[in-house]
């Protein structure tokens, strides 16, 4: 079997006294869609943020395509990479946030174009064409000159996804992308995510939408108190949980 | 040694410096107290007065806040004597600072009073309080807590503004220091001393304000 696209080994992360990740191992192949479920405080979001180096991690390895993220090993010692390098590594993964985090002072189009011009160094017309293609893909081409403040939550999240995808990441990270949305806006965003999955995009999602996780994932990971509690194919996970904890969690979760 | 020389110069000038410091404190205290009392009236008129009174207080505060303090001081100093009000430079300058203070206190008090939810007045009415009672027991205690931090800022502005009286010949701290410098030419050291003393006064004011804030803060 070939090298996995994402490989996490023995990942540890502390915030001061509190250890949030207590040794996480995870591997993902290209084209896989993995959903992380678990109660709040179990470390799901922190795991995603470490993969994108929005948080430094304290121990262990995160590697994408065999390249260690954020740190390199120098004779057995972990050395933090330079900011410039980390910035380029971040561009290998795309991230969609719970709160969208669109740039409020830029139109939808400019939001998508910024990374293309400033990180990928595309010229303006090329970036604009690409940005328009992705906005069209998420169904918002007609809103490209709107500012985030003029868009609904669902529309903002779709622009945010287009902004991340346009960078052609090897791996997309979705952090509870529907949690901040009104119920009637959830589906328009999930449909976009489902479409990307159908295209074969490699995706790691943190989600509370159990039905969606069940339908879209090739594997589901249940996190509990900073560790992986259980993982497997969605059908088994949801129908025959092996651990009492997962069974408990699923009883209280909404479908 | 230079430090020794500076300290001995300070010692020689101690009486003049202490007198100047005393004047600065007196000017500031008088202006702050008088200005605050006047400002409370202005704030009340601006919030609860009839339409005409509100327009007048608006003009009053806008005019005083739009004019530089220095111009206010010069204007009071020159104009009052021409219209037959004989004031010393000390009195005219302090009066100007008090006017300046009143316009700011009036404005922040108006803001604080208007920010109190209407429901408070209605609740007071419904338990049978008259407006003066409502004002005294319900509105003012809230408004005063609210304006305390800004009021301390205004007070420090007054202390700093008191230096401008030196220009109309009031021997407060800054002019006292300048007179000392004229004798010994140690401008660097003595301006530093002046700055440091003002810093101490304002720092003390700020601490006092923080202390009061904590003391009157409502438990949450």
């Amino acid at each position: 079997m070939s090298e996995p696209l994402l490989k996490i080994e023995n990942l540890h992360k502390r915030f001061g006294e509190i250890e949030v990740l207590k040794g996480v191992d995870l591997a993902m192949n290209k084209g896989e869609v993995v959903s992380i479920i678990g109660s709040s405080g179990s470390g799901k979001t922190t795991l995603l943020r470490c993969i994108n180096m929005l948080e430094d991690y304290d121990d262990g390895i995160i590697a994408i395509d065999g390249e260690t993220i954020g740190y390199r090993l120098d004779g057995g010692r972990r050395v933090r990479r330079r900011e410039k390098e980390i910035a380029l590594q971040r561009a290998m993964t795309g991230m969609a946030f719970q709160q969208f985090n669109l740039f409020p002072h830029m139109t939808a189009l400019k939001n998508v174009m910024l990374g293309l011009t400033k990180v990928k160094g595309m010229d303006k017309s090329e970036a604009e064409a690409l940005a328009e293609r992705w906005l069209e893909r998420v169904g918002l081409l007609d809103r490209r000159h709107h500012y985030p403040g003029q868009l609904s939550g669902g529309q903002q999240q779709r622009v945010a996804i287009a902004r991340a995808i346009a960078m052609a990441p090897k791996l997309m990270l979705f952090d509870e992308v529907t949690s901040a949305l009104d119920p009637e806006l959830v589906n328009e965003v999930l449909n976009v995510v489902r479409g990307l999955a159908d295209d074969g995009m490699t995706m790691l999602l943190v989600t509370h939408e159990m039905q969606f996780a069940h339908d879209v994932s090739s594997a589901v990971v249940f996190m509990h108190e900073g560790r992986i509690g259980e993982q497997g194919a969605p059908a088994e996970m949801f129908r025959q949980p092996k651990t009492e904890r997962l069974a408990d969690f699923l009883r209280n979760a909404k479908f | 040694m230079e430090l020794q020389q500076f300290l001995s110069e300070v010692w020689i000038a101690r009486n003049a410096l202490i007198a100047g410091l005393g004047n600065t404190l007196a000017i500031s205290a008088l202006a702050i107290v008088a200005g605050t009392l006047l400002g409370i009236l202005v704030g009340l008129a601006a919030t609860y007065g009839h339409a005409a009174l509100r327009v007048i207080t608006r003009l009053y505060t806008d005019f005083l806040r739009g004019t530089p303090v220095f111009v206010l001081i010069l204007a009071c100093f020159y104009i009052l004597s021409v219209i037959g009000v004989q004031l010393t430079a000390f009195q005219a300058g302090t009066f100007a600072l008090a006017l300046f203070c009143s316009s700011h206190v009036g404005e922040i008090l108006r803001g604080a009073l208007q920010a109190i939810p209407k429901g408070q007045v209605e609740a007071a009415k419904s338990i049978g309080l008259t407006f003066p009672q409502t004002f005294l027991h319900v509105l003012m205690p809230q408004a005063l807590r609210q304006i305390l931090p800004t009021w301390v800022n205004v007070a420090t502005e007054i202390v700093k503004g008191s230096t401008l009286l030196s220009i109309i010949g009031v021997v407060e701290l800054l002019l006292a220091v300048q007179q000392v410098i004229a004798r010994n030419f140690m401008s660097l050291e003595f301006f530093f001393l002046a700055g440091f003393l003002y810093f101490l006064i304002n720092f003390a004011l700020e601490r006092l304000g923080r202390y009061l804030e904590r003391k009157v803060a409502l438990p949450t």
Partner: protein
Amino acid sequence: MDYNFNFGVVWRNFDLLLSGLALGLGLALVSIAIGCVIGLALAFGMVSRNRLLRALASIYVTAIRNTPILVIILFAYFALPQLGVRLGKIESFVASLAIYAGAYLTEVFRAGLVALPAGLREAGLAIGLTEMQARRYLTLPVMLRNVLPSLSNNFISLFKDTSLAAAIAVPELTFYARKINVESFRVIETWLVASLLYVLTCYVIAALLRQAERRLAIPA
């Protein structure tokens, strides 16, 4: 009060007053421009992880904000030459005002930076921008728009503070008003016109800046 108003001499010297007003505006503009550079640098210092930077920036802000501007002006003009730094009247005044403004603007920018949602910078990093790029394209443009109203207030304050340039004989509005006052004894007329010029200018600046704020506002 028997005072006969006669604005003749004031009108005859009106162009002098206007030239003084223009100089004041120019001084305020240059000072706030330099002050913004100081303020931005120190504001980033105040939110940085480096303890020394944070301490230095907050010492600057606390010291300058509690020192009267007149002390700084006199220090720059009369005491700096003792250190071998000889500045002209205008240069030393602009330096003083810029240093003074820098302290206030540091607070404005710091508050603006702290108020930004963390997600703004993070979303930039997530698409691969470096810290410097995220600052330049995201943090700064959004923060500057948010603090524009405070910047406007500071500019108006600074404009009023330019009246203090008269203390070292820089020929701005207050300087000419004093001159006309002393030469003509048309005391009330002179100060009334001078005050009104300040008040009106403040109004116009405020209106223009509000207009600019509206045009630069992020559509919502």
